[in-house]
């Protein structure tokens, strides 16, 4: 071939983004800016939302080939390879390993009835599932949308990557955004559904939990949950392994790495690749708006579920349980427990609900993992 300056210029121009960018890509880039703003300025779960937003930005720059699979002997794009960790279901369990190593289940062990609240606060999952079906979503998509109500990012990403990959970015963004918005979503519902008298209840101090109980706990949970629901093994198994590494007291260096470096590496890769699925064609659809609306609904009804069971436990316990700890059952650790603390203190300045709300809060993590396991058992390939 003869080389020509002009031809090269044309070739470069034709391969540049300016020549080929679509309006969908432009809109998605603007959406990524909004998410970056929310992550940095509004501090919306920035550890995940910032990488997600940046992944979205990269994925919507035209002609980069970042998400292309390998073709013949030509390797694929960077984000294609990093995405394999989601595709193959590896990243979410590793995040759970780190979360397990960071979680103190003592408040739950001291008051096992917290688990009831952690179950009730999955209520919104099923409300959203039901309405999603009514709106015409497929059962798989409806399940993935419903799981937003579990208020647990890795669980939502895990289930969606198994059942409805196209919805992955919308569901992940909704889940993390609403988790960040918990301090705005929950308080109105809390004041609506509880009386001042209920909110004033000071709870009995939790008993001390021995080291042995803390060590036996992750083993019992692993055995029981996975026997009952084998599909939940990757999530509950890794969560409890992380917790065992922490509580055993003999594997501190593994526990530290699981909750720091390993988790950070996986978080970066998980974030950018979840974001990179948000390309215009699949994201800019009415479905996305529906998902966002259904996600909010799911969060609200999960909170309501927790609060209502909290009220029932208030009654049955003769007023010993403050129903405000119920809404913490949605998980969103530790944000939701802090909201319970704040609302409790507003009603009674001497009321310290934080530790009491941590029980339902960590129970909610188990609860939504179980809910995800059920959906996967029903609709998984």
């Amino acid at each position: 071939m003869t080389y020509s300056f002009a031809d090269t210029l044309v070739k470069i121009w034709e391969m540049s983004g300016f020549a080929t960018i679509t309006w969908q890509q432009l809109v998605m880039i603007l959406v990524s800016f909004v998410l970056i703003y929310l992550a940095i300025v509004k501090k919306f779960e920035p550890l995940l939302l910032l990488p997600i937003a940046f992944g979205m930005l990269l994925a919507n720059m035209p002609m980069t080939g970042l998400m292309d699979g390998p073709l013949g002997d030509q390797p694929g794009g960077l984000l294609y390879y990093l995405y394999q960790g989601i595709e193959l279901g590896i990243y979410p369990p590793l995040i759970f390993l780190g979360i397990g190593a960071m979680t103190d289940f003592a408040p739950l062990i001291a008051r096992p009835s917290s688990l009831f609240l952690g179950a009730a606060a999955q209520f919104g999952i099923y409300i959203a599932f039901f309405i999603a079906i009514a709106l015409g979503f497929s059962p798989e998509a409806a399940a993935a949308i419903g799981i937003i109500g579990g208020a647990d990012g890795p669980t939502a990403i895990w289930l969606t990557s198994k059942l409805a990959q196209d919805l992955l970015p919308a569901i992940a963004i909704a889940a993390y955004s609403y988790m960040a918005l918990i301090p705005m979503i929950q308080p109105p519902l809390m004041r609506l559904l509880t009386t001042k008298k209920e909110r004033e209840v000071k709870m009995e101090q939790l008993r001390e939990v021995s080291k042995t109980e803390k060590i036996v706990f992750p083993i019992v949970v692993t055995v029981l949950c996975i026997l009952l629901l084998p599909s939940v093994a990757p999530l509950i198994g890794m969560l409890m392994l992380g917790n065992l590494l922490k509580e055993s007291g003999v594997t501190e260096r593994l526990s530290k790495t699981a909750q720091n470096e390993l988790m950070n590496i996986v978080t970066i890769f998980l974030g950018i690749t979840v974001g990179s699925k948000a390309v215009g064609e699949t994201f800019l659809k009415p479905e996305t708006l529906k998902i966002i609306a259904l996600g909010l609904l799911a969060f609200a009804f999960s909170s309501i579920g927790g609060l209502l069971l909290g009220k029932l436990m208030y009654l049955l316990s003769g007023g010993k349980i403050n129903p405000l700890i119920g809404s913490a059952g949605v998980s969103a650790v530790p944000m939701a427990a802090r909201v319970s603390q704040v609302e409790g203190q507003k009603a009674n300045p001497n009321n310290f609900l934080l530790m009491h709300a941590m029980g339902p809060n960590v129970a909610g993590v188990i609860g939504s993992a179980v809910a995800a396991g059920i959906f996967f058992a029903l609709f998984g390939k």
Partner: protein
Amino acid sequence: MSLFESLQIALFGLVTVFAVLVALSIAISVESKIFNFFVKKKDAKPSAEPKEQTVKANLTDIIPGQLKLIDVDEKTAAMIMAIVSDESQIPLSELNFKYIKAID
């Protein structure tokens, strides 16, 4: 999927979540009772280990408390707080120190 079916699945799911978590709650209660039974047999205060007290400490720490300095000057205390904050990667504003005591 019909609406009726989806309602059934939703109910089924919620019931199953409750079933699993209630089962778990029972298992933990039983386990705790067994454990505490054995412990009481052994001796009176075996769980008075420092680790166990942190739960209690956390509870009372929430009260915006005063920092007690025991045999430590303020400069040293500030340094310790800075080191702990840096090492633990928790901003100082979020760390609560109950007291800092010199090792004599």
